C-alpha cells in the first residue's frame, strides 16, 4: 500500500522557515505511522528527526500532530489514516528539529506539582502503606498518564499562555492529591490555586480528545477545582 507523507521539517540551524517534506512510502495497512516514519528516515532521508523509544504507546516519546490531531505515531495504523498523512510537531513548544520539540518547559511544570508520593509518617516496620480498592480507584484514571504532552499541547489556553501549568501537570497532581497514602495534597492544591494554575482551564475539552491513554482529563481537572472550591480532598 502506497501512502504519502507530508512532514513539517525545520532545522533552525539551516532553515529560515519551516517547509513541507513530501515522501512516498510503501507500507502494510497494519503498519503504524511510526513504521512509515522509519521508512522515510532509514531509506529515504536520514536527516528527518523525530523521537520514539518504546514504539508501543508506553513511553510517550512520539506524540505529534497527525492530520491535525495530537496522537502517538506508534499507535496510529496507517490504514485508519488518510492516503496523504500530514505530520507536524506538537504546538506550543520550540521546535528543536523537525518533529522534536523542546519539552523542558513541560517537565519543569511537571516537577512543580511534586509528582511523587510525600509521606513523612513513620512506617511500621514490615508493613506496607495499605489502601482499599475504593481509595485506589479514586486516582486510577490519572495513573495512566505517560507524559506525552498531547493534552497540554492541544489546549488553547496553553497555546496563548505558555505559563499555564497545563492539563498534563494537573492530571499528575490529581494522581497524588487523591492518593490516600499521600500527605501533600494541600501543598499541591496551593500550587494549582495560583493564577497560572487550574483556573486557567476554560473547559475546552481538547485534552480529552487528545489523550492517547483515554484519560478523562477534564474530569480530573474538575475534581481538582472541586477540591479547591469545597476545601475537601
Amino acid at each position, binding site marked *: 500500500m502506497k501512502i504519502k507523507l507530508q512532514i513539517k521539517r525545520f532545522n533552525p540551524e539551516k532553515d529560515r522557515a519551516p517547509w513541507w517534506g513530501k515522501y512516498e512510502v510503501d507500507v502494510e495497512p497494519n503498519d503504524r505511522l511510526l513504521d512509515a516514519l522509519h521508512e522515510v528516515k532509514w531509506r529515504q532521508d536520514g536527516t528527518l528527526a523525530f523521537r520514539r523509544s518504546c514504539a508501543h504507546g508506553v513511553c510517550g516519546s512520539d506524540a505529534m500532530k497527525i492530520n491535525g490531531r495530537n496522537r502517538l505515531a506508534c499507535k496510529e495504523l496507517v490504514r485508519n489514516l488518510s492516503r496523504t498523512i500530514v505530520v507536524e510537531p506538537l504546538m506550543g513548544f520550540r521546535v528543536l528539529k523537525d518533529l522534536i520539540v523542546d519539552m523542558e518547559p513541560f517537565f519543569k511544570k511537571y516537577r512543580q506539582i511534586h509528582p511523587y508520593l510525600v*509521606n513523612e509518617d513513620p512506617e511500621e516496620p514490615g508493613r506496607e502503606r495499605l489502601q482499599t480498592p475504593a481509595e485506589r480507584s479514586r486516582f486510577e484514571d490519572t495513573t495512566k498518564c505517560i507524559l506525552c504532552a498531547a493534552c497540554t499541547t492541544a489546549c488553547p489556553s496553553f497555546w496563548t*499562555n505558555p505559563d499555564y501549568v497545563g492539563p498534563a501537570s494537573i492530571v499528575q497532581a490529581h494522581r497524588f492529591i487523591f492518593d490516600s497514602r499521600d500527605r*501533600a495534597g494541600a*501543598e499541591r492544591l496551593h500550587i494549582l*490555586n495560583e*493564577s497560572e494554575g487550574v*483556573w486557567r482551564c476554560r473547559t475546552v475539552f481538547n485534552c480529552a480528545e487528545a489523550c492517547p491513554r483515554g484519560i478523562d482529563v477534564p474530569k480530573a481537572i474538575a475534581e481538582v477545582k472541586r477540591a479547591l*472550591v469545597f*476545601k475537601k480532598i
Partner: protein
Amino acid sequence: MEAGADWSVESGGRPMPEGGLELYAWIFMRLSGVALLFLALGHMVLMHILNSVEVIDYDFVARRYASVLWRTYDFLMLFLAMLHGVNGARTILADVVTHPGRRFLFQSILFTVGAVFLVLGALVIFTFQPV
C-alpha cells in the same frame, strides 16, 4: 485543627488553600451566571413579552421605579452583569495579552470603563425622580 490542615504540616506543607482571587472569581462567575440567567429572563418576559416597546415610555418607567423592588432588581442585574462581563474580559485579556505592560494598560482601561458604567447606572437607578 482540621484533618486537612494537620496532615499537610507533617510533610512541611501548608494547610488547604482557603481562597485566592482566581478561586473566588471562578465561583463568582458560576453563581452570577445562574443568577443573571433568571434575572435576564424575568426582564425579557416583563419588558418584551408582557409589555412591548410601544407601551414602554417615560411614565411606564416612572411607575415602575416608584417601587423599591424594581430598583433593586435592576441594580442587581446591572451589578452582576457588569462584574460578570468585566471579569470575563479580564480572563480573556490574561489569556491573550502576555506583555505585562500592555496587559496592565488594557486592564486599567477595562476596569475604568466598567467602573464608570457601573457608577452611572447606579446613579440613575438610585437618584431617579419622576418629574
